């Protein structure tokens, strides 16, 4: 062949670039997720001690200089022995699940309304959803203590309206935690729902009406199933962080509010039991990763069908 072979360097460079671009998220996950998780796992298997850090190394030298691996399952066994941790986990899952359902019930109509709105109205409504993020999360949650406390804004308003004759005790109860979580995480529900609903083609609803659906039937048979990916994404974005939520139960919850984030914090900071706390953190991760894997599995099967 007399024609010069095409230079292979260009496609190879671009494919190397592509591989690098694809590698970045994996490197990120490796560095900031897998590595810390391994450290946590390591701590959970170490023996506790008094000192800084409050645990002994897994691998150490004996007095006679030989390498020795010391594994301790005290943290993990403590986790199973004491009902506190199981109850805290169940409490967290319950509060997170209820909050997720509340967010969905509140967020769906809001997302639907925004997706139906046109032009500047839609932009303004979307801005309003994102607006709270301009203030610190901590300050926003703290502000709720002022609203919810016995002599707070809400009780003053209800008393003034004559709806109640005695102030309600809302602050430092589970109700306050629900309010706090729903308030804080609602945007994470609305935005993916909005993204799913906004893509919905209006002619599909007309087609449903043409084939005999009343508006609510068209909603159930067309809108809802087509927005399901948004429902799932929004629910995961609310549920997963809500399970591990610490600030909201700490500031708004009461002594009865049993959530795993608070327990975790107590074990780390107050009790200084790092192996137990690390075991708890690892267990929580497993509980949270399972639904994600399940979701991915279902989605992949659906795409294959």
């Amino acid at each position, binding site marked *: 062949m007399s024609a010069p072979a095409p230079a292979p360097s260009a496609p190879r460079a671009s494919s190397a670039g592509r591989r690098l671009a694809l590698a970045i998220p994996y490197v990120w996950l490796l560095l900031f997720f897998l590595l810390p998780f391994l450290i946590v796992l390591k701590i959970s298997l170490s023996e506790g001690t008094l000192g800084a850090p409050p645990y002994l190394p897994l691998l150490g030298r004996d007095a006679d200089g030989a390498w020795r691996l010391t594994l301790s399952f005290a943290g993990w066994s403590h986790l199973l022995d004491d009902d506190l941790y199981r109850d805290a986990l169940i409490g967290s899952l319950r509060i997170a699940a209820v909050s997720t359902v509340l967010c969905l019930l509140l967020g769906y109509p809001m997302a639907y309304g925004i997706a139906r709105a046109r032009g500047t109205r839609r932009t303004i409504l979307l801005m309003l959803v994102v607006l709270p993020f301009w203030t610190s999360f901590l300050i926003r949650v703290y502000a709720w203590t002022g609203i919810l406390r016995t002599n707070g804004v809400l009780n003053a308003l209800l008393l003034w309206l004559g709806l109640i004759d005695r102030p309600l005790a809302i602050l430092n109860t589970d109700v306050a935690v629900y309010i706090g979580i729903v308030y804080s995480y609602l945007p994470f529900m609305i935005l993916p729902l909005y993204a799913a609903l906004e893509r919905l*083609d209006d*002619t*599909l609803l*007309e*087609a*449903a*009406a*043409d*084939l*005999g*659906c*009343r508006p609510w*039937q068209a909603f159930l*048979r*067309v809108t809802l*199933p*087509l927005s399901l990916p948004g429902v799932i994404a929004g629910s995961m974005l609310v549920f997963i962080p809500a399970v591990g939520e610490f600030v909201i139960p700490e500031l708004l919850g009461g002594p009865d509010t049993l959530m795993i984030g608070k327990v975790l914090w107590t074990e780390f900071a107050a009790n200084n039991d790092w192996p137990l706390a690390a075991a708890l953190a690892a267990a929580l991760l497993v509980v949270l990763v399972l639904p994600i894997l399940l979701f991915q599995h279902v989605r992949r099967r659906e795409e294959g069908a």
Partner: protein
Amino acid sequence: MRAGAEPWRDPDAVPYVRIEGVTKRFGGFVAVDDLSLEIHRGELFALLGGSGSGKTTLLRLLAGFEAPDRGRILIDGQDMTGVPPHARPVNMMFQSYALFPHMTVAKNVAFGLVQDGVPRAVRDERVAEVLDLVQMREFAARRPDQLSGGQKQRVALARSLVKRPKLLLLDEPLGALDKRLRERTQFELMAIQDRLGITFVMVTHDQEEAMTMADRLAIMNRGRVAQIGTPAEVYEYPNDRFCAEFVGDVNLFEAQVTEAGADRTRLACEAAGCAIEVEQGAPAPVGAWCWVAVRPEKMAIAKVPPPDDGAPVNRAAGIVRDVRYTGDLYVYRVELDAGATVRVTAPNLTRRTDMPVAWDDRVWITWSPLGGAVLTR
């Protein structure tokens, strides 16, 4: 509709669909303007018009997606005023097909039957039947995104037929298909319509499609019906210049009536450089300005002058400025000595690769008094 059945000619026939003085405005824009129309049972009726002519709005008024501001629509004697789309005995095939992406072909087609609570066994049978009709049965388990444009079109048709509507509305049914597929589908659609006897109302901007498929068609312009009739009536007897130009190609000459007979009109035309005679009763008195419309295929082109029989009538000389060869036809653009430019077509009758008439040839154009039409508008 069977050949020979022309219920619109029968004064006693009861129309199936009556549109009575319907007006629809969007803000300041009048989409449909005091429009009345009658469509008969089993007819394949086409609404033909450009964008903004109101044809799609009229279709949506029939489906119930829009409510008329004035006037009313009756289907099979029933007043449709206030009847929502889901309660109308009408189904629509959407231009975008509007197939539900989360459902298989079979579920899409069954959608309307499920909604009506048709028992499962009957439902399955009717879905299979209608999928057979559009030759899509083997694709029943596919999802819409796994189908080609032509396949989606068939599914959309099946879905709109399965409920056996009194009236089927088709919004640019073949618009998304390529030319060859469109031609094949046109005939299939006509065959299906003929077999089921359902009344079809079709919206299209494609005059060829309307001509080929429709029993009758209405040319729409600015929310009104410009002309209504069979394809041949509309083509051969256009009401006005708009209709003449909208359907097919036409040469228009501005001319002044010189003799106004009962069945023959003679006009003087400066741009053609000859007198024009038309076998048609004069629509205007002597001295009035009119237009004469002559279709390109009604004109003959020749390189030799026709025998001279006195003053030139329906005869003009010119020079060929452009020749288009389409295989079956030659299309000539001829600049007449008197100034007008005309379009003339000639069928390609014999096999030859040279041009019978070529660029810059001097030619003579003639046409019969039966070939032209006098228009006052």
